[in-house]
């Protein structure tokens, strides 16, 4: 298990945080730290989520997160292996 950080650009409206943390919770992955702020563009927020997981978990999380309609971009920070542009 390795600590990994995901950076997300998401739509800035109510309910978005729920959708994202719900994905982690459903799979039983604990979030160690979470940071959210509005970007220069008020329609978007940036999130940084730190959690733990092996390669399989990291890849799954990035891919599942990128499927959420409110998520505009996902970057896996620790290894920057997979970036999904939307």
């Amino acid at each position, binding site marked *: 298990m390795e600590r990994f950080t995901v950076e997300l650009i998401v739509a800035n409206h109510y*309910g978005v945080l*729920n*959708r994202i943390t*719900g994905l982690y919770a*459903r799979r039983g992955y604990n979030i160690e730290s979470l940071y959210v702020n509005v970007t220069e563009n008020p329609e978007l927020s940036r999130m940084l989520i730190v959690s733990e997981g092996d390669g*399989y978990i990291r*890849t*799954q999380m990035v*891919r*599942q997160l*990128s*499927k*959420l*309609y*409110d998520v505009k971009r996902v970057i896996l920070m620790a290894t920057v292996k997979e970036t*999904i*542009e*939307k």
Partner: protein
Amino acid sequence: MKRNGAQIVVEQLCVHGVDTVFGYPGGSVLPLYDELYKNAHRVHHIITAHEQGATHAADGYARVSGKTGVVIATSGPGATNLVTGIANAYLDSVPLVAITGNVSVPLLGKDSFQEVDIVGMTQPIVKHNFVVRDVKALRDTLREAFHIANSGRRGPVLVDIPRSVQEDICEYEDAPPLEGETQPTAPFDTRQAVQAIRGCHRPYIYAGGGVLASGAEAELTALAERLSAPVGFSMMGLTAMPHHHSLNLGMCGMHGRYAASVAQSECDVMLALGVRFSDRATGNVEAFGQGRVIIHVDIDLAEIDKNIPSHIAICGDVKAVLADLLRALPPMKGDAWLARVEELKQAELTPPVADFSPRNIMEAVSGFCREDAVVATDVGQHQMWTMQSYPFVKPRTLLTSGGLGAMGYGMGAAIGGCLADGKRRAVLITSDGSFGMNLTELATAVAQELPLLIVILNNGVLGMVRQWQTMFYGQRYSQTTLDRRTDFPALARAFGAAGYRAESLPQLADILGRLPAGGPAVIDCRIDRDERVLPMIPPGGSVQNIVRG
């Protein structure tokens, strides 16, 4: 022009080509139902007996037509009654838009009468959902909802519209449906796959619901013939190739056919098309992947390497990928492999016995129906017998609850399937347990005069659970012996349908020969409760553990 929210909903249904919706009225959707009343000539609304039936009907309508199914329910209990149907559509990737009313905006969040957070509740079982708090956002929200539901990997979307928003007025202009993909798809590369296939000796195609979703049935058959590759199916993919094609081995997985499972375990390249490798389909994950190259094609990147690690992954639309493969791959001969496959098919054959077995009942029913009849099932043994032996010929003629395995799915689905294409003949194959869950929808089928034949493989038990109790729980039949005294033929007649009982093949043939031309009919077929679904690969096992009986 000025329109209120309810009018905008109706306009957008029309813009999206929705001719039929399923639903149930209530306090929070009164304005919407008032508009549906005024627009009955444009949008046909079918009222079911229960909102669960309405969601399954919208799902069945979508599976048959390929269009997005629409279901409407009121807030609170109306909305919660949709949940099973939405989950079902999610797990089987069916395009569905669920519209729920909610309490007026000022009452939201106050535990008002019939207020539930349906958006929160359905979050994990939808592609996306919306609450519309401002009528000005309604038109474009609905356009997004339809777009999300029926693009990429299909699925359900819920739009929650508070009653006040249905009444609020704003400036409205028609706008066309949104097009293109909501999820970006990077260009795919098939070169590695082509190389692996060219070098292989025992190719096998494993085809799933993605083949039907992308309309790639013709490409699938063409590629199978080109490569001399037998094809096994997940439950969702089963109708993608006519049953009588010599390369069609039928369903694989826990209750898959013998030849399909054994051939799958002997192949050297498996081309998996639009499948998600569910645990019911793969059994033991290590054994499944061992000794072969797995090429996984799916439109959903998150499915790649989720359940089964692939050696070669292609993320893209199955139809486009197959077209590419067909351009690149030359005809391949595989005489030894085809001979082996033929041998396995022969080993599957059992001598015919003229008993009142599920297989013989299936044969009589399919003989009665045309090839384009829609076949719906519930969940249990009868479902697996249908998968194993119903001779499907046309794509999109099977409605069954795959991922969720929801008993009670069949009645609603059959109604929706019937109505998807001008009252097409539909058959529901069910059993006493499942039929008991949603049989109230008989009322809907009667009211709509649907040509729906309901065949109850009545074993008096929750057969599938009983089978597990027989095999793994020392025959302790905890709560699975129903033996209810329900008289299904009389019940059918009470609903206004025709009702019959059959206890032998000649009796069944006689009933089928004199069924009324229109309207639903129920045939209660009394079968042996100890009939088992075989073959079976026990959970977590591999083809080595197959029980053939």
